């Protein structure tokens, strides 16, 4: 049963990612007083790219070729292991926070490596910036996940979800503050304004996308939307597991699935409204915001230590 849920999660997340991305695009268009494209436009874009032939930059090697599948595959793997529909991990070995953190670091590493591999200066700058975001956001993510691990008594996200869901994660204030810090860190990790515009390859941070075409670009575009969905799902799974199935009966899992869909949609819509309500900041100022998030994560750690 749990393996079926894992595969279902992965397939559903990949299938729904372009739709969610289309909805956020539609919201952006509406907030800019434009009509915008249809919410299913991303599917058509991906299908079109998939049919095109692949063009590679001269001199690019194996890393460039391997990056798109690794990028997409890592996030699909995370999606399979998270406690999304149930308050337990369908595949416990994939649901450990250490595994998840490394699975999130792997695509970033490959992304940066591919950006140098294609030998373009434009793509290399993009790769460096992507790494910078990682370096600045990961301390906050690690701190928050550490707080949750101590509060729940396990590094497994399934146990964390169960502990939060039954309000057993103590101390309460530390968990709430950690949730706030995690939501902010996730927002930055999603690659949204004011820091980044993930789906726009002309933005410098996603520079490496400029070196891809055809099926590879389709995989990367899909990967970027799956990444946004996975990051939002991580927040929902750890801090808002209410409504997810407590046992593994099919009816409960189905109810959990519907609850998950509603929660993640709310998170994504909120994120896209915030994104369109802010201006773009200069790249140098990114550190200020991430320091703020790290500060809040540190506060939650202190609350954990003093026990409130």
């Amino acid at each position: 049963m749990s393996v079926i849920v894992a595969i279902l999660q992965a397939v559903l997340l990949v299938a729904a990612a372009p739709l969610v991305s289309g909805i956020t695009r539609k919201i952006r268009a509406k907030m800019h007083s434009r009509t915008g494209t249809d919410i299913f436009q991303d599917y058509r874009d991906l299908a079109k790219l998939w049919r095109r032939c692949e063009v590679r930059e001269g001199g690019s090697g194996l890393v460039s070729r391997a990056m798109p599948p690794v990028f997409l595959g890592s996030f699909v793997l995370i999606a399979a292991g998270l406690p999304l529909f149930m308050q337990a991990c369908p595949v416990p070995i994939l649901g450990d926070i250490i595994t998840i953190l490394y699975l999130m670091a792997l695509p970033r590493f490959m992304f940066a490596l591919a950006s140098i591999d294609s030998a373009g200066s434009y793509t290399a700058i993009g790769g460096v910036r992507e790494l910078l975001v990682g370096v600045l956001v990961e301390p906050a993510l690690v701190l928050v996940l550490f707080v949750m691990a101590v509060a729940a008594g396990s590094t497994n996200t399934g146990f964390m979800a169960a502990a939060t869901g039954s309000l057993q994660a103590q101390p309460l204030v530390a968990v709430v503050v950690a949730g706030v810090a995690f939501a902010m860190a996730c927002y930055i990790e999603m690659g949204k304004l004011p820091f980044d515009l993930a789906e726009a390859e002309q933005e410098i941070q996603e520079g490496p996308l400029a070196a891809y075409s055809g099926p590879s670009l389709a995989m990367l575009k899909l990967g970027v939307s799956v990444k946004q969905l996975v990051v939002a799902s991580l927040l929902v799974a750890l801090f808002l597991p209410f409504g997810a199935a407590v046992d593994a009966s099919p009816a409960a899992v189905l109810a959990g699935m519907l609850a998950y869909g509603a929660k993640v949609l709310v998170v994504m819509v909120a994120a896209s409204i915030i994104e369109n309500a802010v201006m773009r900041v200069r790249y140098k100022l990114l550190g200020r915001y991430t320091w703020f998030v790290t500060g809040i994560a540190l506060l939650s750690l202190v609350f954990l230590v003093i026990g409130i």
Partner: protein
Amino acid sequence: MFGYPLVNVLGACLIITSMLVVLARTGRAAAWLYSLQSLVLVAVLASLGAVTGSTELFTWSATAFATKVVLVPAILLFTLKKIGDEARTDLPPKLNPMKSVALVAVEVFVCFVAVSGIDLPTAAEVRPTLAVSLAHFFIGLTCIVIQRSIFKQIFGYCLMENGSHVTLALLAPQAPELVEIGVATDAIFAVIILAVLVWRMARYARTLDADDLCELKG
């Protein structure tokens, strides 16, 4: 959830609200947030009164509501209105506000380490809140040190004062009202004096920047 855990949760809310006071961009927002913080303080006093069965604490919370939630913010907002366009009140702080959050976290931790050495029967259950109240002294000090605007430095004093109020309530819940007036209520006069000073300085020097005001000496 009730009893001492509730007091501790409210103590954590005190830290969060005082951080918001320190981070507030405008003096107006800081005054409103200070009012919110005092409301949490009143809740702490009232819940502590319910837990310890001390009737004095209820009287304290009533006086704290009148002075800190209503009067002090009203005085500060009135001062802000009086200053008007005579000087800029919303100067950016010296320390990057984002880093001050980390600083507050470190202060709370250090205070917890300091408090864990205290071994009093009343303090055992509410040790986190005791750490929070002690930390308020340092948060207030931080506010005074990092703020450039002398108007916002008043909030530093107010935060320190709130901290001492909570410490008193935690360690001596049965203390009579007279003690509370001596320790906590008299702060309102200090705030009035500070507010008048700020207003006079704004009128005289046309600036509230502490760095510029150094030239007043001698």
